[in-house]
């Protein structure tokens, strides 16, 4: 005899799934609410627009804010052509061979490496060996390497979901492989690629370990003016304020701005993507 009728099972499934969703959402809401609740009172125009003073106990976070936006931007400028290029190569230009499987396995392994190892590598390679010092350059290159695996895999998936019929049609019209990639495949894979880019930007903004070793943690009063300047990001700032017990208030203030920044980046990227899709397929 059945324990439950299909109808009861269905109700229970809905109940359990709903509960799981609710639990996840409430954790998320709680974390964000907690940070914003503690941090937002500190956030003001002055906090956003002034340079820090007294080791971060007073003043604002303006140079830090700029560094936080600059670093992912530089990292993506390096990682995107490399990542999307690799994905195009893997998906469009090679047959499935032992070599491509090794490349794929390698990227998967790289994606699972803890970020502090990237930090150490960046420190040894960019900071010391290449002599870039603690700088935006070292930091962004390290972040670029860190997000590459994610970027490659998400882009490759996106490219593979473009229907084969488009490739056939484009080829039959006398397109070279590259013309097909450029005119048909990439525009259609863009939403998927953008997802990978957004994930990567989020990771860059939130990254602490890989950055602290490579971009340094100099608390400058000015916005970094060259690629070889050292500066700190919000995540590093937050970490140091809290770790050193300098100012809990300002730590939470920074964290609140960080969450809002990630939110803004995602919203803007989302909006841009939809504008692009609408323009193409009116």
């Amino acid at each position, binding site marked *: 005899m059945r324990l439950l009728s299909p109808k009861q099972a269905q109700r229970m499934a809905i109940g359990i799934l709903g509960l799981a969703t609710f639990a996840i959402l409430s954790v998320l809401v709680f974390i964000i609410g907690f940070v914003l609740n503690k941090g937002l009172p500190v956030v003001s125009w002055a906090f956003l627009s002034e340079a820090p003073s007294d080791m971060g106990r007073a003043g604002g976070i303006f140079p830090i804010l700029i560094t936080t936006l600059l670093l992912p931007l530089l990292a993506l400028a390096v990682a995107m052509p490399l990542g999307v290029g690799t994905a195009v190569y893997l998906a469009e230009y090679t047959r499935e061979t032992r070599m491509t499987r090794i490349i794929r396995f390698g990227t998967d392994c790289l994606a699972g490496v803890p970020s502090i190892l990237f930090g150490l590598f960046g420190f040894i390679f960019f900071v010391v060996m290449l002599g870039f010092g603690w700088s935006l350059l070292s930091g962004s290159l390290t972040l670029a390497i860190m997000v590459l695996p994610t970027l490659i895999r998400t882009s490759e998936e996106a490219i593979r979901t473009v229907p084969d019929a488009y490739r056939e049609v484009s080829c*039959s019209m006398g397109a070279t492989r590259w013309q097909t990639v450029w005119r048909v495949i990439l525009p259609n894979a863009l939403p998927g690629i953008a997802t990978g880019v957004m994930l990567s930007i989020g990771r860059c903004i939130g990254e602490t370990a890989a950055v602290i070793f490579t971009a340094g943690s100099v608390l400058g009063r000015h916005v970094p003016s060259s690629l070889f300047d050292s500066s700190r990001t919000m995540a590093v700032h937050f970490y140091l304020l809290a770790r050193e017990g300098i100012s809990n208030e300002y730590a939470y203030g920074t964290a609140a701005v960080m969450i809002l920044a990630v939110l803004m980046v995602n919203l803007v990227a989302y909006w841009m993507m939809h504008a692009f899709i609408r323009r193409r*397929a009116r």
Partner: protein
Amino acid sequence: MPLFGGARGNTEPMTTPSQKQVKIAARQFSVFFGKSQALRSINLDIHAHAILGIIGPSGSGKTSFLRAINRLNDLNPDSRVEGTLTMDGEDLYQASCDPVALRRRVGMVFALPVPLPMSIYENVVYGLRLVGGERTARRSVLDQDVETSLRAAFLWDEVKDRLHTSGLRLSGGQQQRLCLARVLAMRPEVILLDEPCSGLDPISTARIEEALVSLKSQHTIVLVTNNTKQAARVADETAFFLMGDLIEYGPTIQVFTTPENRRTGDYVTGRFG
């Protein structure tokens, strides 16, 4: 030993007694995919400015032959050919033949309408943009090409007010005519159609057939179809393929009314297939 005799081993092409100019000629032409042979030693002449209908049950090698003409089989790395296939006397499978250049002279319409995910206008000019040069340099010239191509595909009146909406928004029949217009814009010498009406209603089918008949003065047309009646309606000559062999080839009226081979007769009258 082949199941059926047919054209296999016969080096003389089954030509029709006519003075027409030969556009494409296959001589002992075979297509393989890996170990399996899709087409067995075909000898066939395709005449310029005529419609060749290719009929036969599925799996008979019709599509493999069609895709050999624009070398689309190349997309499958396991494919290879034997024998020769020439267009205007040039061997299409010699190293000197650039498949990209060839495909610009040979347009193809697929079984399922596949507009590229862009506007109607951009779909039509896609082939032109690939080549670039003078035909895409001036907007007015491009506009004219779009109108001419869409008119020739009997689609202009239905879409002229929404050229910049997505090609995916059209109905199935309209999409297939858009695909035809897209091919026509390239002004190809040869148009290959792979069961272009298999997913269409009778009215859309009639529109396509109407377009094809009006186009043969300018182009050489090869029409693969599962619908024998369609071949009877529009084709000047008909070839009957069966399991990779060319069984019979001749003027359509002859193939349908007094076929030389019993199996051809059985197929066109619907007794098997």
